[in-house]
């Protein structure tokens, strides 16, 4: 019996990831018919490069949502980590009292930014598990705190001109594919490996599916949850590095409302907001759908007023189709 239910679940999940893929294909065909500028290699790479940041952020968000949590702080964390990378690269770490200055290599600033993201995420997880604060509230607080810290660190001004080597991360290509796409791919593969192949992955699904059952089966829930938020923070930091490098500038207001794009990608990708169900690959599809839509609306020169209406409508449509699909199963 257990064998049978397992096959049905995989079958259902496969259908679900297929649904977002089908939606993506339909959208692409539609846009190809409407404009001949859409279906070109250049534009394809362009869309992937633009989507890379959201893929990184949304992948972290998927892990969080799978545990039935939510992380609203990713946009601010992205901005702070990007600013830290840019600031350390440009000015190093200065201790005025000791008259000491530490310069950083590019590798050093990348590590520092990712560690910063991990620490901020860890703090989210700590507050959520230790004080039983709902994730929505804890990460909402972090959204504001991290934005404030970004303003403090940058003094509200952009940190620009970071040099050609750093710009390679955002603007360079490797084997004809933009570097941000390679980075996003690495992040996704890591998350897919965690969810599919490791004990941590099974625990993530178990906690989201039924927290009480997970607790009684001996899973150390706080440890897993903290780990997941730390991972989400680190992935947001990777997104921050890409944004900063692409612009050759860390903007204090970077990443505003990125959490909404990430949540939209997760939802369109078929991950349940109540946890326990969904895949990283679905989220990748969701993020690409949003990217294709952003790109297509500009290619068609749709009025900026209408773009917002259309985008919201498509998200709604995707979720409704998903719900109907669920019912029929």
């Amino acid at each position, binding site marked *: 019996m257990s064998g049978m239910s397992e096959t049905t679940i995989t079958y259902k999940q496969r259908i679900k990831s297929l649904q977002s893929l089908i939606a993506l294909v339909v959208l692409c065909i539609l846009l190809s018919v409407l404009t001949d500028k859409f279906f070109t290699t250049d534009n394809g790479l362009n869309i992937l490069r633009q989507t890379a940041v959201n893929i990184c952020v949304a992948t972290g968000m998927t892990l969080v949502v799978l545990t039935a949590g939510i992380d609203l702080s990713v946009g601010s964390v992205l901005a702070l980590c990007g600013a830290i990378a840019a600031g350390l690269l440009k000015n190093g770490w200065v201790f005025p009292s000791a008259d000491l200055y530490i310069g950083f290599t590019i590798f050093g600033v990348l590590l520092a930014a990712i560690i910063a993201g991990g620490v901020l995420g860890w703090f989210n997880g700590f507050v959520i598990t230790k004080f039983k604060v709902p994730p929505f509230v804890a990460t909402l607080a972090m959204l504001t705190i991290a934005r404030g810290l970004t303003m403090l660190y940058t003094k509200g*001004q*952009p940190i620009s001109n970071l040099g050609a080597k750093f710009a390679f991360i955002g603007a360079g290509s490797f084997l004809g594919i933009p570097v941000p796409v390679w980075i996003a791919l690495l992040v996704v593969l890591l998350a897919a490996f965690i969810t599919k192949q490791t004990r941590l992955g099974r625990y993530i699904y178990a906690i989201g599916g039924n927290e009480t059952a997970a607790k009684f089966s001996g899973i150390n829930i706080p440890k897993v949850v903290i780990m997941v938020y730390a991972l989400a923070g680190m992935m947001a930091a990777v997104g921050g590095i890409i944004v900063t490098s692409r612009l*050759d500038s860390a*903007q204090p*207001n970077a990443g505003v409302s990125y959490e909404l794009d990430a949540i939209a990608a997760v939802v369109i990708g078929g991950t349940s907001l109540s946890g326990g169900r969904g895949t990283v690959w679905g989220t990748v599809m969701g993020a690409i759908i949003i990217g294709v839509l952003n790109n297509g609306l500009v*290619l068609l*020169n749709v009025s900026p007023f209408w773009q917002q209406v259309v985008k919201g409508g498509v998200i709604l449509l995707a979720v409704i189709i998903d719900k109907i699909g669920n019912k029929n199963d």
Partner: protein
Amino acid sequence: MKQTICKLLVICCTILLFEQCGQKANSSGQKKVAIVISTLNNPWFVFLGEKAAEKARALGYETKLFDSQNNTALESDHFDNIIVQGYNAILFNPTDADGSVANVQKAKAAGIPVFCMDREINSLAAATSQILSDSYAGAVAIGKYFVQTLHKNGNYVELLGLVGDNNTWARSKGFHSVVDHYPGLKMVAQQSADFDRNKAMEVMESILQAHPDIDGVFCGNDAMAMGAYQALLTAGKAGKVKVFGFDGADDVVNAIRQGKVAATGMQFPAVMAQTAAVFADEYIKGKRSFPQKVPVAVELVTNKNVGDYAAYGKK
């Protein structure tokens, strides 16, 4: 029970703390100036607010900066607090030309003078004086230089700021009031990038897919101009396509010097902020007649005169 007592104690202590702070400020007898800024989520406004605070402090006032986060309701709350705390003047950068009028009237009724900086409110009587950046005229000057640079011929793209913002349309209308007279100049795309550098880069990348053969880009602010330039650079069209911005931010002034950006409209936030602070000081010292509106010209910066300028002003 124990917890409740603990909580109460903490609350009481916090209140005591604030009381003491308040008393300390009052006992020093220093006059206070409030600076209310539409949003500190934009480097330009941060600079405006800091310059206003700097000047007011130099004139001997205690200052406090309020961030309205582009939200008229939050701005209203700030005004309530400012009135209750008995500030002597408000240096004000309104969130919305119509939506902020009621807030200014509220302060006026409480006897606190309001000096508007950069952005206007649609009421002549409410504010004591308005020191305004002439966005429309600045965009007209950019429009003229745009026509000249493109030799009256070519395809161009316009990147708008936030579509709900007055400045977005003042700049766009000023620009089009000139450029639309030249049939050889064809606008192939008009898109919004929300005054945001990253958004501008992404929108520009997509536009370049549809229209690879453009000659110019007019951007509603400098952040978008830098974003558009970054997209052109990646596409290998940086030299060919002329980029025009607005604001006079550090990055763009440097970019004009290096020939990366063609021109920008230099605004003078420091001049506006300092004028407002000086007016407030004069008002507090008894002067009552001020000009209703003080226009501060927006100057065209190109590679010919860029040597005279630094970020947000003259050298």
